[in-house]
């Protein structure tokens, strides 16, 4: 029964992607078919991949541990001066576990938020407005990894060369939270 539901959702997503693009083609409007950005030919397959790929961080368990693995030994991650990198600023809001990764893979940093996190419709609203605390946590974990491994966080190009078209603005909103979303 569960498998049928997954197939049905996948099919719906595929049909949705295809339909949106078909409308775009029939009307001659390149905008009608876009998902993000200024010119994308999303396929049902790509849409399906997005949904099947677990692209629903807001629907995850509220008590989930988020984790990154850093390519430094454990003693360099927890030096005794509190949490590393941007995680330190969140110390009162998170629990953190640090443990060696298997093999030569460095150190795992696991963190989860204390207290409640948005769920259901409020999670969608929080994510859209950039106020979901999981976005802060994911960004902090990624930036902590960069600081531990390379000593800084790589900046995107500034000033941008892009233009504020409608599709571009939508993509800009997505990328402005580029380190705060995703699956970790």
């Amino acid at each position, binding site marked *: 029964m569960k498998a049928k539901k997954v197939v049905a959702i996948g099919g719906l997503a595929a049909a949705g992607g*295809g339909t949106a*693009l*078909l409308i775009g083609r029939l009307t001659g409007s*390149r905008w009608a*078919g876009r*998902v*993000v*950005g*200024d*010119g*994308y*030919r*999303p*396929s*049902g*397959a*790509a849409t*399906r*991949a*997005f949904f099947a*790929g*677990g*692209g629903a961080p807001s629907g995850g368990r509220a008590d989930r541990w988020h984790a990154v*693995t850093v*390519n430094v030994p454990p003693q360099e991650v927890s030096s005794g001066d509190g949490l590393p990198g941007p995680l330190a600023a969140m110390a009162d809001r998170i629990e953190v576990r640090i443990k060696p990764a298997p093999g*030569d*893979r*460095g150190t795992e940093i696991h963190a989860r938020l204390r207290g409640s996190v948005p769920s259901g419709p409020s999670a969608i609203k929080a994510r859209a407005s950039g106020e979901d605390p999981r976005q802060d946590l*994911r960004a902090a974990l*990624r930036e902590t*990894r*960069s600081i531990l*491994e*390379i*000593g800084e966080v*790589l*900046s*995107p*190009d*500034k*000033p*941008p*060369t*892009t*233009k504020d*078209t409608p*599709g*571009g603005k939508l*993509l*800009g909103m*997505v*990328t402005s*939270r*580029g*380190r*705060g*979303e*995703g*699956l*970790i």
Partner: protein
Amino acid sequence: MKALVWNGVNKLGVEQVPDPQILNSGDIILKVRLSSVCGSDLHLLGGYLPAMRAGDVLGHEFMGEVVEVGRGVQNHSVGDRVVVCSFIACGRCWFCQHEMYSLCENSNTNPAITETLYGSALGACFAYSHALGGFAGSHAEYIRVPFADQGAFTIPDGVSDEAALFASDAAPTGWTGADGAGVQPGDVVAVWGAGAVGQMAARAAILMGAERVVNIDRYPERLRMAEKNIGSEAINYTETHVEEELREMTGGRGPDVCIEAVGMESHADNPMFLYDWAKQQTYMQSDRAFPLREAVHACRKGGSLFVLGVYLGTVDKFPMGAAMNKGLQIRGAQQHGQRYIPQILQHIQNGELETSHLMTHPMSLDEGPKGYDMFKNKIDGCVRSVFQLDGHSNGHSH
């Protein structure tokens, strides 16, 4: 500064954009001298890859002169003539330390997009959409190069700008395929595609000791180029049956190694092409994969298949039964250029690798839209349009 920008599906413009700046300690600013189009740009141009914004500067295969260095840069100084890997890599994360540079953990400033699509974030690439970081490309007078100590390589004396240019992307992509496929001395290697990457994969296989190497394509001029400049054999798939040719060539075994250097916009001269094209145009699949299917079927039992051509999403009718039951090893990757560029430059310097013949159509940046049109439609035998900046003239080398 002047730059060639993407303004929408099949819309390009030469416009003024802001100059790049040093933003991180490992950055350099490069004055671009040569910048090439690439087959993978066509996926951006045609709207097949997501996350492009109007105003994005294109171009990821380039060389030039260092004009500014960040405080943390140790290997380069102002005035250096360098070629830059198209993928941006920190050199310190686990993936970089294991020479899988295109999977770098610290270079993609928008990791969420590919993480959501693919399950893991990819590293960044110049001018390859905001899904791969949104970094401005090289079809411009200047470009910011992050992690320059890892990704920029000083060009040896005696190696011309034109030859070094293709050590940026085409050649290391070919090396990634041949090395990743595990080419061994005595192997028979079949490479689908005789564009720049297909030719470089063939030459890499030859230099790794392959006994016979064959490029498969439909453009006679590209196949002639592969025979003349690379030393491979040629199969024109519009004139013969590819699998029959390969079986005859290998005593009925099939190639030991198959390298697919075509990607998601492939062509074929049979009904499967119409099937793939129709499904792609009606958005029922994202990628056309005829050469990939053919390679699986042609490869010898227990052989190796490497996917170098760029795929975005899903393909239909992939012959999983053949792949599994024949015991094939299948791998794929974007290029890990930081691993191969030093040896590629050495091969060029030693006269063992010819690359400058790929630059069939040098032109000014102002002619950028025309250059892409010639490249996309293979006009006048175009293999690569290359934009010359800073008054660069043909044949110049330091």
